[in-house]
């Protein structure tokens, strides 16, 4: 009987991921300044490779140019490279990561990180056709992986063409494949439905706000009206598309736009929204803070439900503060240490400015920091990536 059970276990699957609020082993990335050392959460590709970008936010919440690192799923971190220079050289968002490569976007370029070489490559800072500078207003967090390459969707302008265009980008070759002019003045939120390979942008044009749904290889797009007005955040907010058809986006002034393909409406949130997370079943969740308390609310059938305390986020913060094990493998040898850690992307580890991509089923990778050390008047912390089990309720 024991053998039968062992075989059933083997074939049925006795391997499990992290339990809700369980904290895994951290991997040290490097030392960076600021109590909040980064705005964006870590990114993961399908193989488990990690991509981290730092950038301390200024008083408006705009991140400063930072350092991007890539880490192999089975070990090693790259030395890191600068995302850019000046106020436009900071990382505004992740585009995605597949097969050992990750891409982030700044206002003036796309930066490709390669796990195998540890190198960063700046792409599309100049349009190879018009030889003019490219300005990125928003890039959807979506990489379409095909036999022909990796493609993304963005809203861009160029130095010689101030009119925004909806552009399809070949991330490998670093060029714009297709572009379609838009009557857009501002991009307020970006997002994607990776399961359906759809990119979403909440934009403002002459008639108000609307959501554009586009696909990486199509010049046409779907336009959805948004009733109401709102301001933009410093960085474009999260936009998400749920499996049930719900579309939601975070805007400035603690407002959110919620609805379906029939239309969205703007309403105030009862707490300060940070991210819209998509769970493993395709459901959407608005997360944020009420004071210092993490809150969560379900987004279903185009409606925002009542919020509740997000106990999972609170328990993760408590577990980080109690102490976690981190491994420093940068010197070629694994050195373990125990940290009293805290979230490096904001007040709560699970609440950075942009949604945390799934690290594995039921877990997210978050960026944490150890207690800061004063170096010449600037507080420096060691940063580490830690997988944590997540429960959305």
């Amino acid at each position, binding site marked *: 009987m024991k053998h039968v059970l062992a075989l059933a276990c083997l074939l049925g699957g006795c391997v499990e991921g992290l339990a809700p609020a369980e904290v895994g082993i951290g991997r040290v990335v490097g030392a960076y300044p600021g109590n909040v050392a980064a705005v964006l959460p870590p990114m993961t590709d399908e193989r488990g490779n990690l991509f981290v970008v730092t950038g301390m936010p200024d008083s408006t919440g705009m991140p400063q140019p930072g350092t991007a690192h890539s880490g192999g799923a*089975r070990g090693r971190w790259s030395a890191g490279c600068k995302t850019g220079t000046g106020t436009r050289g900071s990382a505004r968002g992740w585009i995605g990561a597949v097969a050992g490569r990750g891409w982030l976007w700044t206002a003036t370029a796309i930066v490709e990180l390669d796990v195998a070489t540890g190198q960063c490559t700046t792409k599309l800072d100049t349009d190879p056709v018009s030889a003019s500078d490219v300005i990125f207003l928003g890039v959807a967090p979506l990489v379409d992986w095909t036999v022909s390459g990796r493609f993304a969707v963005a809203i861009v302008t160029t130095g010689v063409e101030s009119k925004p265009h909806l552009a399809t980008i070949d991330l490998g070759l670093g060029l714009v494949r297709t572009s379609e002019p838009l009557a857009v003045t501002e991009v307020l939120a970006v997002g994607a439905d990776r399961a359906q390979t759809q990119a979403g942008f909440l934009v403002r044009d002459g008639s108000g706000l609307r959501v554009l749904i586009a696909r990486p290889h199509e010049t046409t797009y779907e336009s959805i009206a948004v009733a109401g007005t709102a301001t933009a955040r410093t960085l474009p907010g999260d936009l998400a598309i749920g499996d049930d058809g719900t579309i939601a986006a975070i805007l400035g002034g603690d407002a959110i736009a919620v609805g379906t393909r029939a239309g969205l409406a703007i309403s105030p949130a009862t707490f300060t929204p940070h991210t819209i997370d998509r769970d493993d079943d395709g459901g959407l969740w608005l997360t944020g803070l009420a004071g210092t308390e993490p809150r969560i609310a379900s987004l279903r059938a185009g409606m925002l439900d009542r919020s509740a305390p997000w106990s999972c986020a609170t328990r993760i913060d408590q577990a980080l503060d109690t102490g976690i094990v981190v491994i420093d493998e940068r010197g070629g040898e*694994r050195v373990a240490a125990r940290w009293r850690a805290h979230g490096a992307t904001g007040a709560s580890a699970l609440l950075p400015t942009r949604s945390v991509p799934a690290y594995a089923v039921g877990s997210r990778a978050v960026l944490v920091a150890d207690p800061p050390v004063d170096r010449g008047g600037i507080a420096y912390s060691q940063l580490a990536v830690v997988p944590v089990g997540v429960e959305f309720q």
Partner: protein
Amino acid sequence: MMRRALLALLLATAPAYADEATPAPTPPLADEATPAPAPAVPASDSVAKTALLPPLRTGLVAVTFGGSLRPTIGLSRHDTPVVRDRWAYGIAGSSIDVGVDARVGSHVSGTLYVSVGSERAPDGTLRGRVGLERAVVAYEPSRLVRLSAGKESVPLSAQSATPTVARVFPDRIALDDTFVLPADVGLQARVTTGKVSGFAGVWNGIASDVVLEPGATERGLLYSARVELTPLGAFEFDEGRRENELRIGVGAAATYRAVTAFTPTGMAGVRSRDLRAAMSLRVAWQGLFVQSEVLRRQVTDDLSMRPDVATAAYVQASWRFRTARVDIAPLGRAGLEHIRQLSSPATGSSLELGAAVFPIARRTDRLQISALYAHVLEPDLGLVDRVLLQLRLGF
């Protein structure tokens, strides 16, 4: 017929070397149509089973030469919006496998098997490949027991345990690549009776399909075991051969490997456990051959907290029947796989239909012509329709 087949091979291989000389465009067209050939995984006695020429004997030593030619032409259509890459064709599945089997007396033998074909380089271009697929020395104290040492395939799935030359299908099902382990160096014991065959092996465990950091290596022994019960008697060596009597085979296999990765500087790094298992059912009767398997893979490590779990199942069937002049075997195969189930889930599937023709079946089964259409959903890359035409000549 032999001369014609050789001529066909020469014609088919000529473009292969042209591909090698001139780098393929990006992305390459020529190597997308057919996947790189699966390494030939001959069974211990496949050379002797398939050899065309009689053994050369001198004293106690008998040397047998054998192998197979497999010119393969493929055509595929990818579901990609980039027009240039929709259609692809090529001969990347072609290979010639040559084996030498030397026996000293009745108890000791040695086998060397080399496969010459093509493979895809990391930059996507097609390049020639010469692979030492098998190099073993074996000792057979009795007809039931065989002990071997050297490099050979690790028998996990029924597909990987079946020699390439013995398969009625022109290639393995694509999902098998997720589970099958590369050929490795080790020790293996085989016990074979008419009703049970069992394999147990200990392998070096270096060869792995797990992605490591560049320059890193892994150390850790790999253990394998495979058992198949055939209560009605053993199967024929060749899947395509007609069985007059009913044959049933129920098999189970597992491999286990606990390894430590060493960084390029030689320091101990991540530790991982790799557990794979397979259960198979085979039935043969009056030309009908049905095979089904369930496969499982679980790789965990002490760093990522991100288990790599995959499960797959497939069923394949062929039915060989005779016409006035040739034997024909319709082929059908369907498979479903779930990969990265606990990390980044993706699903793949395949449906394949085709036929194998044995043009000179009245005299020999050495010549087989197969055509196979496959409708494949690749887990990460989407839909592809593929047609494969293969001539297989055993010698």
